[in-house]
């Protein structure tokens, strides 16, 4: 009985060759930590890599910081469950948002020399909204780190057979060591390495998987037969008033909710992401960071979502069967187990482990920055020498990881809370994005307006979510609920922001130079070096090509 259960799970049989590759990888990770340690002389080196990184590194780190356990396993699960509609997360969501960040928002962020996203809030609006933003970010991020850690422990337990507590302690230990040593540089270098290794694991998996299900035509035939043809299209069944698509939302909700509000909110205001661009060496490199990231992001669905579909075709009956012990989240580990021989197996497992760890490290490295600069330096110990903040940063890293471990054990107690917490945290980005957009475009927006509309923008989607918990008939799917919740949050902020601005006192225009569109000028080229002016490095050109590719990649799956 038990043996049968183990075989039908996702336990992998690694050989010593595979373990050698895993061990080599993590030895290199620690080595990079020590190497980066030599270069940390100031707190800016620790928190923002001394603003010295070239664009290709920050760009790949930008896309990779998001390529954690929840992204790879979650998007493959979406592929298995809702099919090609998962492309929306990339083509209407992430990529346009990255282009918007690079072309429109980055000049304000990088040009104002802020060291974190909450600090931009401080410069534009003042202390009250800054405190709310900094605390919300610090608390939610350390909790997300713990949830990531727990998600990773479950998968490691299932794949390698380590007990959860051991997986939690070992992974957290690695992250703790290399971030405490080298700060953001360690995190970024490892993100870039992880990016290439996970790709080297997922490409063979996709090729073998497609081969095993009879090529692309075999895959589409199998999917049409079992799950239905709607799984292979993206926009079919999204008409308003007649939504039959697997997401359960019409095209307007998909474009506005998933695309404009949730994705733009996540990619442009989540400091975990934006921090990578802040570490770039100049304005040109900072603007190109999300644009360079957009290109791998365009093609990642083909090695994440397609394997999800392959898994649905190959073992979809087991996902649907509640007694099989297999869930949609197991799509990629299950394919790895079925299709990869020892050797490539080691590469794929190394890539997965690395991506899990990098996801958590990204949370920790942005948490320590916001805590040190935005909370400690601003409100607790002002005007200390720089070395004080460097030391605080290292201690905060340790404390952050320890809280993360504690959260992971808490999450282990209450499993079903996890998805809800992810949903809830995604609401923090939507209102923040709305506040920033209004504040960037409209110099009349006041501090009071920012504070109260931001708080209302957090409260409104929380209320919608609670209503959905009480009455699940309100929305077709959980995803549809988050889309509408995000739209409601955005509208709440805009309406309240405008109304309150008219009855409160705006900041003098002289304090808004470089922080609001049309007030003062931002010199986009003053810190250029010779190589930045090459035509193929033009942000406008890169952004345009990325958007054209978004449309082109939709075409086969309309």
């Amino acid at each position, binding site marked *: 009985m038990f043996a049968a259960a183990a075989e039908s799970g996702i336990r992998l049989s690694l050989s010593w060759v595979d373990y050698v590759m895993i061990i080599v990888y993590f030895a290199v990770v620690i080595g990079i930590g020590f190497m980066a340690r030599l270069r940390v002389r100031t707190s800016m080196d620790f928190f923002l890599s001394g603003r010295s990184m070239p664009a290709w590194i920050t760009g790949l780190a930008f896309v990779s910081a998001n390529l954690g356990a929840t992204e790879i396993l979650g998007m493959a699960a979406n592929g298995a469950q809702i099919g090609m509609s998962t492309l929306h997360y990339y083509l209407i969501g992430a990529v346009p948002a990255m282009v918007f960040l690079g072309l429109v928002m980055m000049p304000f962020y990088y040009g104002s020399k802020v060291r974190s996203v909450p600090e931009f809030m401080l410069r534009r609006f003042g202390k009250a909204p800054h405190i709310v933003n900094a605390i919300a970010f610090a608390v939610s991020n350390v909790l997300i780190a713990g949830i990531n850690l727990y998600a990773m422990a479950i998968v490691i337990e299932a794949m390698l057979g380590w007990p959860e507590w051991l997986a939690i302690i070992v992974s957290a230990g690695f992250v703790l060591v290399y971030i405490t040593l080298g700060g953001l540089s360690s995190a970024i270098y490892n993100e870039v*390495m992880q990016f290439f290794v996970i790709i080297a694991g997922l490409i063979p998996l996709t090729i*073998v998987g497609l081969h095993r299900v009879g090529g692309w035509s075999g895959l589409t035939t199998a999917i049409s037969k079992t799950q239905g043809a709607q799984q292979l299209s993206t926009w079919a069944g999204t008409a308003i008033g007649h939504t039959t698509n697997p997401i359960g939302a019409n095209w307007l909700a998909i474009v506005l909710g998933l695309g404009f509000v949730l994705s733009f909110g996540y990619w442009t205001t989540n400091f975990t992401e934006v921090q990578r661009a802040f570490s770039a060496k100049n304005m040109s490199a900072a603007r190109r960071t999300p644009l360079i990231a957009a290109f791998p992001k365009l093609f990642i669905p083909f090695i994440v979502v397609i394997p999800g579909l392959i898994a649905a075709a190959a073992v979809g009956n087991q996902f649907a069967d509640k007694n099989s012990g297999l869930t949609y989240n197991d799509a990629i580990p299950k394919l790895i187990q079925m299709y990869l*021989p020892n*050797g490539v197996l*080691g590469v794929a497992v190394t890539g997965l482990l690395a991506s899990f760890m990098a996801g958590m490290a990204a949370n920790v490295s942005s948490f320590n920055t916001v805590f040190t600069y935005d909370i400690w330096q601003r409100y607790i110990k002002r005007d200390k020498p720089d070395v004080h903040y460097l030391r605080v940063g290292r201690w905060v890293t340790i404390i952050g990881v320890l809280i993360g471990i504690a959260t992971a054990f808490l999450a282990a107690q209450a499993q079903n809370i996890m998805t809800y917490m992810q949903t809830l945290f995604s609401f923090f980005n939507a209102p923040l994005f709305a506040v920033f957009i209004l504040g960037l475009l409209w110099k009349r927006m006041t501090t009071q307006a920012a504070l109260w509309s931001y708080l209302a923008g957090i409260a409104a989607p929380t209320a919608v979510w609670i209503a959905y918990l009480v009455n699940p008939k309100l929305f077709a799917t959980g995803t549809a609920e988050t889309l509408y919740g995000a739209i409601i949050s955005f509208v709440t902020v805009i309406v309240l922001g405008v109304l309150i601005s008219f009855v409160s006192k705006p900041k003098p225009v002289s304090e808004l130079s470089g922080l609001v569109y049309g007030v003062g000028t931002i010199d986009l080229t003053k810190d250029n070096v010779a190589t930045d002016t090459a035509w193929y490095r033009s942000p406008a050109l890169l952004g345009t090509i990325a958007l054209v590719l978004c449309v082109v990649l939709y075409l086969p799956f309309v």
Partner: protein
Amino acid sequence: MSESTNPNPQQGGKLTEEEKAAYVRSTRRFDLRRILGALFLLYGIIVLITGLVDPAADTKPTGGIAINLWTGIAMIIVGALFWVWDLAAPVPEEDIIGVLEREEEERAEGEGHIPGI
């Protein structure tokens, strides 16, 4: 400190040419592209050998594709490309030295005094 060729000088600004050259060398030695190149070469060789040693185990789960061979070869090529890229376009010297010379500015920024604004 200023007479030695310490590759990690603690004082920005007043550096000898020798110190600058040592710093440039030590930075380039640990260029991420070299590390990635080495990692991919090593992985490629391991995977390729695994495929060569036991071809039957290689093709059994994949339904006929010798995935270890192909992946091994591809990873070796990618590893070599990282090294070629590193040789063809090393990090510009002024970028490496620029970081050192900005130390005072960085310290001020870390303390919350934003220079130039």
